[in-house]
């Protein structure tokens, strides 16, 4: 239960499959492959949740900043690129009166929470829902970016950064699911 426990979701999920694999014959070649995969986990794959957690918390921080700027808690600094002030105040910056930035922050925090649960309980099945949430976030960000380009006529550099973050999270999460599914075979 220590916090220094390494992130080992794929290996942990494979462990739940191992008895079936062994029951299939326990061939030396399969055992060697399994050992090689475990070694790969230790070498690189085992570290995947750390960047994913970092991206999620980074996205939550970014969304919190945009949300606070939207409700007047802080000044929005756009830099030389685009016009984030216009985008963050446009009619598309809310969904039924709820700031999109607040929804984004809740999504990123939910992703971080799901990640934590999946880390502690690899067999919880929540990884799939985390991926669904991240994919929804990516698609909605894509829609908002389209609005910036074709309807609002202004770009928000922070919103584009958030789109890149959530796309990265979805890609990472998808890779993790694919790896888990491959290992389950």
């Amino acid at each position, binding site marked *: 239960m220590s916090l220094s426990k390494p992130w080992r979701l794929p290996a942990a999920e494979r462990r739940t499959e191992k008895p*079936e*694999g062994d029951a*299939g014959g326990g061939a030396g070649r399969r055992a060697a492959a399994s050992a090689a995969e475990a070694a790969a986990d230790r070498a690189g794959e085992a570290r995947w949740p750390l960047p994913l957690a970092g991206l999620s918390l980074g996205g939550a921080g970014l969304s919190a900043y945009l949300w606070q*700027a*939207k409700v*007047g808690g802080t*000044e*929005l600094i756009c830099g030389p690129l685009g*016009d984030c*002030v*216009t985008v*963050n*105040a*446009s*009619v*598309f910056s*809310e*969904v*039924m*009166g709820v700031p999109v930035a607040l*929804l984004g922050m809740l999504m990123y925090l939910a992703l971080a929470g799901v990640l934590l649960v999946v880390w502690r309980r690899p067999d919880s099945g929540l990884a*799939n*829902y985390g*991926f*669904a*949430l991240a*994919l*929804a976030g990516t*698609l*909605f960000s894509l*829609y908002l970016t389209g609005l910036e380009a074709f309807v*609002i*006529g*202004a770009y928000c550099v922070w919103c584009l950064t958030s789109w890149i973050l959530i796309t990265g999270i979805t890609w990472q999460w998808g890779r993790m*699911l694919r790896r888990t*599914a491959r290992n*389950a*075979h």
Partner: protein
Amino acid sequence: MAKKKSKSRKQQPSMGLIIGVAVVLVAVLIGAQQWWNHRQFQNSIRAASYYEQFPTEGTRIGRADAPVQVVEYFDFQCPHCQTASDRIVKPLIEQYVAEGSVAFTYRFFPILGPESVLAAQGAYCAMEMGMFWPYQDYLFAKKGLGNRGTYSRNNLIAYAREVGLDANAFAECLESDRAVQYVRAAHDQAVRLGLIGTPTFFVNGQPVSLSSWEDMFRVVEQALAAAGR
């Protein structure tokens, strides 16, 4: 081996399901946003048709020869002006302007930063295009404060489009010298009158000191009584 295959078959619909959940979630969000924005648009259309029943000229609503003339110097980003729009201006129009006893005039006094000036220029352009009243209603409903983008150039153009104005003509006007000059002249006139804040009300040329929103209606009643109405 058979067990493995059955397990992998079980995972396939699961992936389809999670992609479906994501797509449905996004569709619901987009649908909710579009529906809400459409409702806001319908409200602005209703506001536009609401003001059509009153005689208007520029920033004045009500008959030019009404016995009581109320004037307000205002700034779109001033929170008290936003409250006054709901607590004073709308009831005045509803109760007094409708019966022809009062005419109400807005005068620009943008003192709270660049977006106050831009919003005033936008309202001037709407006035030029004969839509000042629905446009000011729309701007006040946004309740923008502190130059945070609510009344940025692009948003003012978007709001103009939403109240039914020609966005290209509006954008051209917003950047024109005449809009800048009009708002500057209005500001300078308020300064010459010695005004230092907003909202400042005048009833028949006399400044009104308000300790509550209801005071305005008492002053209007007194002015009406003095005019024999």
